[in-house]
């Protein structure tokens, strides 16, 4: 959660990860289990499922294609000059 939060763009706050995890859980992309201990409160752990891994691989491929296409497009597009921006 801290890592996602540090990225600055992916979570509006750390707590919003729990609704996201719940959606992944409902979609079967992660599983969860509770661990009980005498000294602490019950704790919920999440684990990616095989289907989640497949979805992740597919997303990685889609993302690489998409990012490559956008990068190519941006590289071929001239950035506006400071002169035109000031007009």
């Amino acid at each position, binding site marked *: 959660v801290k890592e996602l939060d540090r990225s600055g763009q992916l979570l509006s706050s750390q707590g919003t990860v729990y609704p996201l995890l719940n959606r992944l859980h409902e*979609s079967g992309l992660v599983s969860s289990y509770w661990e009980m201990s005498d000294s602490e409160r019950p704790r919920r752990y999440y684990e990616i499922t095989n289907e989640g891994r497949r979805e992740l691989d597919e997303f990685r491929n889609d993302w690489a294609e998409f990012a490559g296409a956008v990068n190519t497009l941006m590289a071929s597009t001239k950035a506006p000059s400071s002169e035109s921006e000031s007009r």
Partner: protein
Amino acid sequence: MTKQTGQRMIRSYLRQFDATAAALPRPRRALLREELATHLRDAISPEMSEIEVARVIADLGSPADIIGEEASGAPRRRGSSAGGTDKLKILLIVLAVAAGALALFAILPIVVSYLTASERNLSALVWALSAISAVACAAFIIAARRRSRN
């Protein structure tokens, strides 16, 4: 800071959560509350100052933010990120139809020389209908696959 102060701040946060989350179904509300409470109890230690605890609570986000995220998201269906793959399939089908059409045009002069005028018109019509049917079938198959995913 005393342990009691940290506990008091956590309780205050959870009270705000209870007030905000009333619209959520009871089982989901209880689960989310437990996760937020565990998050705070893990992140807050008795050695922390009141400012540090306030920072941890701020990083967690307001209950309204979290409930908003909970309420905004219809569950994402399996395979929902496969849009790119479907686009690739459509592209491949269009390319296949175009390649077929080009191949047909390449042999057309040879075939046409053996046909009468009315047979030429008929074959052009058949070719156009075949191309439209191929595209329509492809669109139907993709739409059916999307419906079955949802």
